[in-house]
Structures are given as structure tokens and as C-alpha cells.
């Protein structure tokens, strides 16, 4: 994935990111990219890593079959303040976790759309994935809601 792909600048309040234009997103702030036919690479969006804060450790927990289903927990990720479940966004078979994360878990935050991907799975991605433009709408609504709950518009 050396070629430069189109990115869309996004900024709202104090959050800014450059969203790859050609990949899919989920409402739970994962991105999904088809790396070869039916093989999907999954990662956190920049917004997700911002919300999670610093990450220190993670583990994939799968049974021997490596079968995975959308919405099922496939492991956990540990931040400074809490442990969060990792929910799968692909129906099919778990292929592998990102080996680079074992060395350096901070890649998740420093290069979320590139070297900091989470895992790859074969099969079908969740049906409710959206394109970058719809995801931008989701980000707007999410950030506005957060600002509102903080009592500042």
C-alpha cells in the first residue's frame, strides 16, 4: 500500500483527521479495507483512538475454529483508564492480528489508517458500513453531541 491514496481533510471543534476516501467505515468508528478479494483489513479510526486515549496492550481471543461474527467480541484492548472489548466487524474467518502491534501498540494511534491496523479477516464485512462522506456526517453528529453534553456550543 505504498501508493498515495486520496484523503479528505476533516476538522470539527478541536478534532482533525485526514480520512482515506476509498475505504469503508462503521458507526462504531472502525475502518474496513478490502486488501484482496474477500480479505478485509480492519482498524480504528483516528476518532476512535482519540476517544480511547493511550493504549498499552491488547489481545485477540478466538476459539480454535477462528470463526468470527459481526458484533461478537474477539478480544480486548487496554488503555490507561480502562479495558474495552474489541467487537468484530466481519462475518467469516479471522486471518491474523497485526504483528507490528505486538512490538509497538502505539502504532494504533500514530498511524491508524496505515501501519496501525488491527486485524484481517476473510468473509463479509458488516452490512451497515458507510462511505467516507456518510462517516463525516456521523463524526459531525457525534462531536456536536459531545460538545452539547459538555455545556458549550
Amino acid at each position: 500500500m505504498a501508493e498515495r491514496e486520496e484523503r479528505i481533510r476533516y476538522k470539527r471543534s478541536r478534532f482533525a483527521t485526514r480520512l482515506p476516501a476509498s475505504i469503508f467505515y462503521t458507526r462504531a468508528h472502525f475502518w474496513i479495507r478490502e486488501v484482496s478479494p474477500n480479505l478485509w483489513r480492519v482498524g480504528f479510526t483516528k476518532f476512535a483512538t482519540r476517544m480511547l486515549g493511550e493504549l498499552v496492550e491488547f489481545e485477540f481471543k478466538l476459539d480454535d475454529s477462528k470463526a468470527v461474527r459481526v458484533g461478537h467480541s474477539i478480544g480486548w484492548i487496554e488503555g490507561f483508564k480502562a479495558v474495552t472489548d474489541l467487537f468484530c466487524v466481519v462475518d467469516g474467518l479471522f486471518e491474523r492480528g497485526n504483528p507490528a502491534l505486538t512490538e509497538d501498540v502505539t502504532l494504533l494511534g500514530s498511524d491508524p489508517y496505515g501501519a496501525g491496523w488491527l486485524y484481517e479477516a476473510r468473509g463479509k464485512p458488516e452490512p451497515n458500513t458507510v462511505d467516507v462522506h456518510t462517516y463525516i456526517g456521523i463524526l459531525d453528529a457525534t462531536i456536536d453531541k459531545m460538545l452539547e453534553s459538555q455545556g458549550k456550543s
Partner: protein
Amino acid sequence: MKQTTLHNLHVSLGATMVPFAGYQMPVRYGSIKDEHHAVRTSAGLFDLGHMGRILITGNDRVPFLDKLVTNKVEGLETGAARYALMPNQEGNVLDDVIYYVFPELLLLVVNASNTDKILQWLQKNKGDLDAKIEDVTADWAMIALQGPNAIKITSPLTDLDLKTVKGYKAAGGTVLGIPCLVARTGYTGEDGFEFYFDANRAEFMFTSLLKAGKDLGLRACGLGARDTLRLEAGMPLYGHELDENTNPLEAGLQFAVQLDKNPFMGSEKLLKVQEDGPAKSLKGFFVEGRRIPRQGHEIFIAGQDTPCGVVSSGTHSPTLERALCMAYINGQHPEGTNFELGLGKKRVPLIPTKIPFYKRKRKKKKKKAVET
């Protein structure tokens, strides 16, 4: 949900706000680690507007407070500050507090989560004594400037000679022209100050201090860094190391318990604990691997199925770059006992270590001239 007077400023600085003890507080502005390192290497600025601040006045204020805390109040000079526990009749901890002695008044600083409880406790135990209790939490701002550069940042802004305000001392003066109680106290294990002043000036003070210290590396810090800093420094947090089922001797806070002063609330029980030995004791551990031990995780002796203790606080230490925790261990165990942390079905080896995990390097005191 309450807000401190600095709420809008925190939001505009991009803070992640979380509920804490009934307040919306900044947990971090950016990265907790960066904020943590700023305090260890330069300086950090904290809004502590949630902490309870109580004024005690009246002619009997000193014997009144002396009766209710484990440390001495009688005989302290003006400007003295002390850390103490406020025990119940059982000798267990209602709160841990800091008090400052000023002419005509005592300033008592309590935990946000315990402010109402302590106000009621003070009223209940006042009896006929001439003591007036006033909650000034909302009227006074409290911010902390912590770190090795705190003195360099504050000195040009104050009329006080800060070299004379030594550790655990406080003085009245002005900072940025604002009348202020300046205390050399904190909760980070670093040198630094806590400022008490008119809440209406809080935003001006906070932004001006940030600006004044910017070139020296000062940054705004949230409760996330405050927690990792205090934990490295081995300082207890109410609700974690301290609660109403724990006495100060179990928590290893002997330094703040003066059993030889006049009898105080719970002192008989504490004398008995001292005689018999505590039922549990607070211990420090490093943890192998990157997993973070959390409050409530159980601790086992290797090869045993029944837990012998429980984690009270844990974190990944940004300074030491490893996971560590404080934990209560029941009973006594010989040196060399192999302790393990239970993480679900897994057991992770623990390495016993002394509390505090981190101690700042202090400048060596100048040697006294050799007598001839």
C-alpha cells in the same frame, strides 16, 4: 453534575471531561503520558476546584480540629501545613485531609467525594466548642502548579519570597496581583504549589500561569496524570487505598499518625492496632508484562487458589515505563513469598517493591561550615 469555575476554559482547551465525585472534570487535555512527563520534567497546571475547602474559625478551632485528626494541630506555627487522616470511632478513615494554620483560621482541604460527609462530621462533633465551620468550596478557586519549574514560573509573578515558603508551608501574598494563599504542597511527588484565591479570578489566573510557563514547558494537566503521578509517588487516594474499612496504620501512613498527642477520635483503637499489628498492609508491586492491574484484581500466593489480597490502585507508570500497583495483602508473609496477580484465568508474577515507586531527586543540602 457540578462544574468548577474553570469548566468553559477546560472545554475550550480541548479537555476530555468526565464525571468525578459529582463534578465534570478534565481527565486529560491531550495525552496523559505527555502531561505526566511535563510534571516530572517541567511543570503542570491542575484545576482542583472540586476539592472541598472548609474554613474553621473561632477561639476553639485548634483543639476542635486536633480532636478529629491523627496529626498534630496544637502547637503548629502560622503557615504550617499538615497531612492527616480523619478517623471515625473505629479508627478507620473517613477522609484524608490537609490543613493549613493561619492567624484566626484553619483551612481544611478534603476530598471532593467526602466534602458533605466531613462537613456533617465536623458539625456533629463540635459540641459546645467555639468553632465556626464554613464551606468555601464554591467561593475559592484551588489550582496546583506542580513540577521542578513551578518555582521558576511563579517567582516573577508574586510578591512572596518563595524560597522562604518551604515544603509543607504556606503564606499569604499576591500572585499576578491577586490576593492568594500560596502553599508548597501537592499530590504529584514533585515540588510545587497550590494556590487558593477568589474563584472569580480563576480563569485569569489559570490562563496567565499557562502563558507565563509556556516557554518552560508548562502544560495543563487533567485528573488522569494526577492519578499516575500520585500513584508513582505512593500517595493514597480515597476510595482506593483508604475507606471506612481501613485504618491509617494498615495504609502505611504512620508518619501522619501522632499517637503520643492528646487522645483523638479513634486513637484508642489505633493504639490497639499498633500493639496487635495491622490485619492487612499496603504493599507495592511491579507487574511483569504490559497488562495494567486494576482496583479489585485479586492477588494470590503462587500455587494457591484463595486470594491473599486485592489491588487498590494500578497503572502503567510513565516514568518507570512498567506496570505497577499498590495492593492490600492480608496477614504477614515471609520475605521471598511469590505473589501473583489474577487476570481472569491467567496469573501474572508480581515483583514486590517499596512504596513510593518514584522519589524525586532533591538538591543536596549545603554542608554546614565545619566548626573550628
